[in-house]
């Protein structure tokens, strides 16, 4: 079971690969405000996240995700509910 901090670390690696020009990334980085990801890049990111963490991200959570930390928290919760379902 991954910790929240581990998920943040992996997310930063994924996002860094998508936007190599941005150097400083942390859990408070806003995906749109700071990184300027357009909606297509966001969907690309979600797909990478799904494949990497082997989860299915319900799309109704996206309106409540602003920062890398928000997304990490959603993934963390999804992984937890996966584990408890097993």
């Amino acid at each position: 079971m991954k910790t929240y901090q581990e998920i943040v670390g992996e997310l930063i690696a994924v996002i860094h690969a998508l936007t190599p020009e941005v150097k400083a990334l942390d859990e408070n980085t806003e995906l749109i405000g700071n990184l300027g990801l357009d909606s297509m890049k966001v969907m690309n990111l979600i797909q990478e996240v799904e494949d990497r963490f082997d989860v299915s991200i319900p799309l109704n959570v996206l309106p409540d995700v602003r920062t890398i930390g928000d997304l990490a928290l959603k993934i963390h919760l999804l992984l937890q509910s996966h584990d408890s379902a097993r």
Partner: protein
Amino acid sequence: MGAQATPTENTLPLRRADFSTLAEALDYAALGQTGCNFYTGRGELIAVLSYAELRRQALDLARQLASFRLPRESRVALVAATSPDFICFFFACQYAGLVPVPLPIPFSLGSHQAYVRQLRALLQSCRPSLAMAPEDYASFLTEAVAGLDIKYFGTADDFRRLPSAKVEPVPLQPHELAYLQYTSGSTRFPRGVMIKQAAVMDNLAGIAQYGVDLRPGDRAVSWLPFYHDMGLVGLMLTPVASQVSVDYLATQEFAMRPRQWLALISKNKATISFGPPFGYELCQRRLRPGEAAKFDLSSWRVAGVGAEMIRTESLREFARALAPAGFREEAFLPCYGMAECSLAVTFAPLGQGLKVDRVDAERLATEARAVSPAAGSRESEFVDCGRLLPGFELKILDVEGREVAERQIGVVHLRGPSVMSGYFEDPNSTREVLSKEGWLNTGDLGYRVGDRLYLTGREKDLIIVNGRNIWPQDLEYLAQQQPEVRPGDALAFGVPGPDGSDLTVIVVQCRETDEAKRADLITRIRSRVQAEIGVDCLVELVPLHTLPRTSSGKLSRSKARQNFIATHNLAQSRSHQERRAAV
């Protein structure tokens, strides 16, 4: 996995949308074996809804909706996820004499508040008696309806638990509305296009009989949203009215995994699919090297292209990249339409593919005429969007309202049985676009050659990004929400992007001189626009009192746009043809 997708071949003689109402069309389709199928982005079949089962469920639901004893043509708002429930509710309304209003689902990151505001504005515009949202979006609906006068709202299952009416409801009749469509208004001042049964049935018949010439063996695939006219009318209602099986992929799943579109066509040997140009481009960009040959697109006879200005480069690239999969460029079917005409207005002839007209760019700019290029002059190219569907009349008018000659550019006006009755409870907006004689001013610019229509741009300020209509007023409003920006300090417009889509630009007058604060303002505007409207935009700060005005002193978007294009050298990047021709 026990479920099997509905078959392509039907046991029923094909009837090509020759019905008088949508309910009657479903009554017939339900006698056969075809239906719709829902797939995940990973290609799993998650739901199958035969038209027989759709009719059963819609009739049951119609009795439950009837228990509210609402006046006929009362509106029912439906948050339109790509799901069997949406289609069941849409047809339940048809049987119950109620008018469905498909509403969007949220797409963007961080858009929670913006989406709730948008939903609320739409609900205030269509004033529904009932509202349904799928489980996943129910909480947004609950927030949006707070304080509004709505009789009942809930999830699909909430509605299914209601008591049924004792009396059999009477379906919507040909002179009554079929649905309201909200694709063509601004976010803050939405306009609901009213489409009558007779109008949509006329358009469906045109699409099925002339546009795509439906035949036995046809099967459709769609990832277009149900709240968009092409997704709703073209890929949901046309299949029902022609008893064609269709395979659905949710729009967001497509955006995440676009190659699944090709996988679905390959798997079920689909023959018909539509999309805006950017959909094809997205798909092609995500193709992996050597992967094309793994798909089999040889069955794909109609690859419809519409919803925005068609530029040929990215489509030709798509065709080249997927030639190893058996895709034929002649399968491209350019078409033109809008929600105000139900959906379709013109289609290119089947099998023609992308036929372009090369014209002299200088004379186009100076005389608004589309004529063959003189030797050595720059060229522009426009795609043949084909002929009018039967029933439509076309007039192309100049600024004084006079009809223009062939190859002269003017504003496209249309009249015919598929045209809307008006905007819902909005007589002013209706009067602006619809004349007493029934002529619709489309705001699109174009010219004709013989019976062919070519579109060249827009008279109205509308911006189109990835097939979505965006109103500059909404963008300007968002910019002006920033504390340092005042009303009249922002102008928004679209400039031609490389693929036919617009690039969105906001020019903002700004007093601030501190570089860090200026950068911060740009970031705030961009993220607000991204969250509220879901598009990326370019924000340019200019000194005070520099936004251009018309001779009567009004701010001029079109002048700002021209200035922007001139100062950023964008005219050159309009198309490679032009650049090559200029060299």
